């Protein structure tokens, strides 16, 4: 358990030192790298030991804060998430050094480094916390560090807006969590997680309250629709390595919280489980639909995070269904799917954000319509982005498919989903989500990296240095590795899921064997696809060796003077689908069609605002403002009336109470 403390301390000390060393950039960089490395080693050992079954005993120190005990522990669930934190944290941190250097002072180095390390450290502590107060402290530190990262470039108004929005959302969430823990604590008599588990069951009303509070508190962080409003604003605003960490790990912490709570409080009701599944699907469909419609590729990625969170939540909901039915096998499968997808999402989403960041830095814009032709100019970045895009679409030879396949099997495999109607519908929804993901990410990758450059910036873009490429490559390698040899990841996921379900390892292992076999078969399939492609590639090159291979312009279908501006744009690419969902998307379009016989300049501008943020929320806020304007008149500056308030209040109380 000391190992965890070492890891956290390494990060914290590195954070402080890098803050003090702000004058000497190279020192600060080395400190950051050293801190990350130390944390990786210590934490990695701990994770390894825990997953190997030789878990360390809890660390329990008295703490002179009312209700608090410094109590940290490690089980497979924690270890699983700690693994994610460390991998993504270290990759993003390393990349960040290159990114900060490459931003030429746009990104203030000191806060970016400091807050990033604090963020990682807080998350590492969070997953180990076994006391509500400690949990909350870690949680809030994480949230505030993320806020610091989001508002790094606070010179830009949109960044300020995003930072404010994020801060408000996260604080409202934290308040819900405080209420939640107060409720549980009053029932259990202490703020220890163990005592929550031991406490007598709450009355129905309070149970419902706990469920709602947890859903809002954790959901605000995870970004369940419609609590996602901060997400698509904050992720583009933050520096890319930060958004990678936030989107790859931090929002998953919301799910960790839910799972932890489940492991403590036991099964939820059947209705609640159905609700969770429905919420997950709605979130996912919403997220991917809006992802398709975006022009800013970091916004697109943010929306796709919402989608993936939705998928994970669906898995968790299925697990809850199993718990509610007291069918541990079902529960195990659902949670395992959710956790496996969480791991995968952490990997490929951070990979995508990192490559997107590299593109942003090279091209100088996040607008898909202004990119293009980058694959010739920055081949490494674009190649890695292609891997990420394929993975996030859940395409077989890569890791994205595994978690989704588990969830599909839950839903469709007879004897598991019990042929429940909602299961089949959910499967259909999942398939829609998958297909839309292909649409969205063929757009994100294809139109950003392929074709011809649409802007000056894109024309002379270059690949970044190894310090940025290395972490991306590592993440991509992990994606492929899990895709080809999934059984190890599956074991981790099952171990974690067994902690959620509360089943002993033995009962797990029986079902685990079958599933790991199946997944290995799928992994072999992926390998087979790769092998076949290799063969065909050789065959093709063998054929072409003896023939002449010429180069020429792309065939313009008879049009003689094509320009790069005439390429198909992102908006037009996603148009056939966005048209279908026009009512839901409510894309704002500004059209100046060419008029007259000799048309002058024509223009087309489209933007898809977030409905929750820009359509539903304002309704509430304006109402609220109207309310407030009335009592505000009371502070009008007339002393006489102030005195009148005092005496009137006095008289009222006298008449009322005396």
């Amino acid at each position, binding site marked *: 358990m000391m190992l965890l403390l070492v890891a956290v301390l390494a990060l914290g000390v590195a954070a402080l030192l890098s803050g003090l060393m702000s004058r000497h950039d190279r020192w600060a960089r080395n400190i950051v790298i050293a801190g990350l490395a130390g944390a990786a080693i210590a934490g990695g050992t701990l994770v390894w030991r825990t997953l190997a079954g030789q878990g360390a005993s809890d660390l329990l120190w008295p703490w*002179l804060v009312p*209700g608090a005990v410094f109590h940290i522990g490690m089980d497979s669930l924690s270890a699983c998430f700690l693994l994610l934190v460390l991998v993504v944290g270290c990759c993003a941190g390393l990349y960040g050094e290159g990114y900060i250097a490459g931003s030429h002072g746009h990104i203030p180095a000191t806060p970016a480094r400091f807050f990033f390390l604090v963020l990682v450290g807080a998350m590492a502590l969070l997953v180990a916390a076994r006391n509500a*107060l400690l949990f909350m402290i870690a949680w*809030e530190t994480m949230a505030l560090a993320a806020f610091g990262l989001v508002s790094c470039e606070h*010179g830009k108004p949109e960044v300020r807006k995003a930072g404010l929005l994020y801060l408000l959302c996260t604080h409202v969430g934290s308040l819900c969590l405080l209420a939640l823990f107060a409720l549980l604590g009053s029932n259990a008599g202490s703020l220890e997680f163990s005592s929550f588990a031991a406490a007598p069951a709450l009355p129905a009303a309070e149970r419902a309250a706990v469920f709602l509070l947890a859903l809002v508190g954790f959901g605000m962080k995870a970004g369940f629709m419609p609590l996602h409003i901060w997400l698509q604003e904050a992720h583009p605003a933050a520096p890319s390595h930060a958004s990678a960490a936030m989107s790859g790990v931090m929002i998953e912490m919301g799910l960790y919280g839910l799972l932890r709570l489940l492991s403590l409080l036991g099964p939820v009701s059947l209705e609640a489980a159905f609700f969770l599944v429905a919420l997950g699907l709605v979130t996912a469909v919403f997220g991917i639909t809006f992802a398709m419609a975006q022009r800013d590729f970091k916004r697109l990625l943010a929306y796709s995070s919402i989608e993936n969170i939705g998928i994970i939540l669906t898995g968790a909901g299925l697990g809850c269904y199993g718990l509610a039915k007291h069918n541990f096998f079902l529960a195990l499968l659902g949670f395992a799917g959710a956790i496996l997808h969480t791991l995968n999402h952490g990997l490929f989403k951070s990979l995508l954000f990192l490559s997107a960041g590299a593109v942003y830095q090279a091209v100088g814009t996040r607008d898909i319509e202004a990119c293009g032709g980058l694959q010739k100019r920055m081949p490494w970045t674009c190649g890695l982005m292609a891997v990420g895009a394929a993975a996030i679409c859940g395409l077989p030879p890569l890791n994205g498919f595994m978690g989704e396949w588990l969830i599909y099997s839950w839903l469709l495999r007879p004897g598991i989903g019990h042929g429940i109607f909602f299961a089949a519908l959910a499967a259909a929804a999942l398939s829609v989500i998958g297909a839309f993901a292909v649409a969205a990410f063929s757009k994100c990758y294809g139109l950003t990296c392929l074709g011809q450059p649409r802007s000056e910036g894109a024309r002379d873009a270059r690949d970044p240095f190894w310090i940025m490429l290395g972490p991306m490559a590592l993440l991509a390698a992990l994606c492929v590795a899990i895709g080809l040899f999934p059984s190890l990841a599956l074991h981790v996921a099952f171990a974690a899921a067994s902690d959620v379900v509360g089943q002993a390892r033995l009962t797990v292992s029986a079902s685990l064997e079958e599933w790991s076999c199946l997944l290995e078969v799928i992994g072999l399939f992926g390998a087979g696809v790769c092998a076949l492609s290799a063969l065909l590639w050789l065959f093709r090159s063998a054929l072409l060796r003896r023939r002449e291979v010429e180069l020429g312009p792309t065939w313009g279908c008879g049009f003689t003077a094509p320009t790069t501006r005439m390429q198909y744009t992102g908006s037009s690419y996603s148009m056939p689908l966005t048209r279908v969902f026009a009512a839901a998307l409510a894309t704002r379009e500004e059209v100046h069609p060419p008029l007259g016989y000799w048309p002058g300049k024509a223009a087309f501008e489209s933007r898809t605002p977030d409905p929750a943020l820009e359509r539903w929320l304002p309704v509430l806020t304006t109402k609220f403002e109207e309310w407030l304007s009335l009592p505000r008149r009371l502070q009008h500056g007339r002393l006489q009336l102030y005195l009148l308030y005092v005496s009137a209040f006095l008289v009222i109380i*006298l008449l009322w109470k*005396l």
Partner: protein
Amino acid sequence: MIYLLLVGAPLLVGLLALVVDSDERRPWLLPFGCTIHASIVAACWKTLPGPAMNGWFRIDDLGLIVLSLASVMFLVCSVYCLEYLRLRKERRNRLFTACLSFILASVSLVAVSRHMGILWVGMEAATLATAPLVYFNHNEKSLEATWKYLMMGSLGIGLALLGTFFLALAAIPFEGRGDPLLIDTLLSRAGTLSLPWLKGAFIFLLVGYGTKMGLAPLHSWKPDAYGESPGVAGAILAGVITACPFLGILRAFQICAAAGLSEFAQGLLVMIGLLSMATAAVFIIGQRDFKRMLAYSSVEHMGILALGVGLGPAGSFAALLHLINNGLTKGVLFLSAGNIHRAFGGKTMDHVRGALRRAPISATLFLLGFVAITGSPPFAPFVSEFSILRAAVDGHRFGVALGFVGLLAVIFIGMATTVLSVVYGIPPNSDSELSAQGDSPLMIAAPMVFMALVVFLGLWLPGRLTAVLSGAARLLNGGAS
């Protein structure tokens, strides 16, 4: 003897300040006097002195808390004053310096007195001594603020006096035998008090001292006074001078609890507490003047204090802890706000943007203080506010808990909007000739010390302090002193 020192030492320093005739050297009296005072208080912590002057003076746990808070706040603020008064050469600082010392003296008097009459006298003295601080800037606005402060303060203090007399009348039944305003007498004979008069007394004391404390709807003077006085005065007002009337209310509550009226008193306190939070929320939303915003935040936290005491033993403990936390955090906020105010020469969002660029450290402290005061871990106010929430939930007062959390959320939204737009962004007219003024060493050292204390108390509550706090909480809820 020690009481004489506690009250007399600052008093003498103040008189000395009136005599000394050099604006450069005079301010140095402040840290001097405060150090003496602090050392005496430290001695009190070592051994709690017994009663003196036929029981009129004695320090119990409640008094000790207020006394120590005042001592610490004054010690740090006096260091700040050195630099501040050096920068404000154009003003004579005779009255300012003297009044600060007088305030310390009268606050100590309030803290150590066991006699409601003496307590009142000290309170009135503190009120009057504060007026020159508010009027320090000598412009029309500060004049208006001072006038309002004086009138409302006097009305409140007068009502408090009426309440005190009511208390004495409630004690008529044990005619002749002992001083009817001596707290110990009242407590020991609480059973025989005549309840109607006692109720009346509590109501008058609550409204009277509540006006001084700034509970809604009695708070109207607060934004003006806090907004127009210099930052250091704001810190003293919000941190120390609110604590005295709160002590007065606590004394009254103590007697009510002993007489078996705790239900009645708690009901009133919870009501007025929630009302204050709601009022603060209304005015904090969309507040463009960050010093007025701090004033309303102070209203909010006075409400939280009242609410906490209204929630029984656990709540009282949390409230007393919050008294300390709020004082220290307000110290950070007002001092850093004062620096920002001076760095920009304005205190509304129209003039002040991007403080992080012009006065980086002060702005950072301001931001941190905001995060702390709104109850985010790992800062001290989080602990106390969470404990109050727990107290509410433990007592199954779910409505109260809901209101508490909801209002906290609304207030956070309001404050965040203002604070962030002050701290972040790009300064309006980027001529940084002022920026030198923004962060001068002593003037950021003081709020830094407060910040350190806030973080420390948030992560580690010393055992002795916990003991004192719980002792005070026991006193409040009918325990023997």
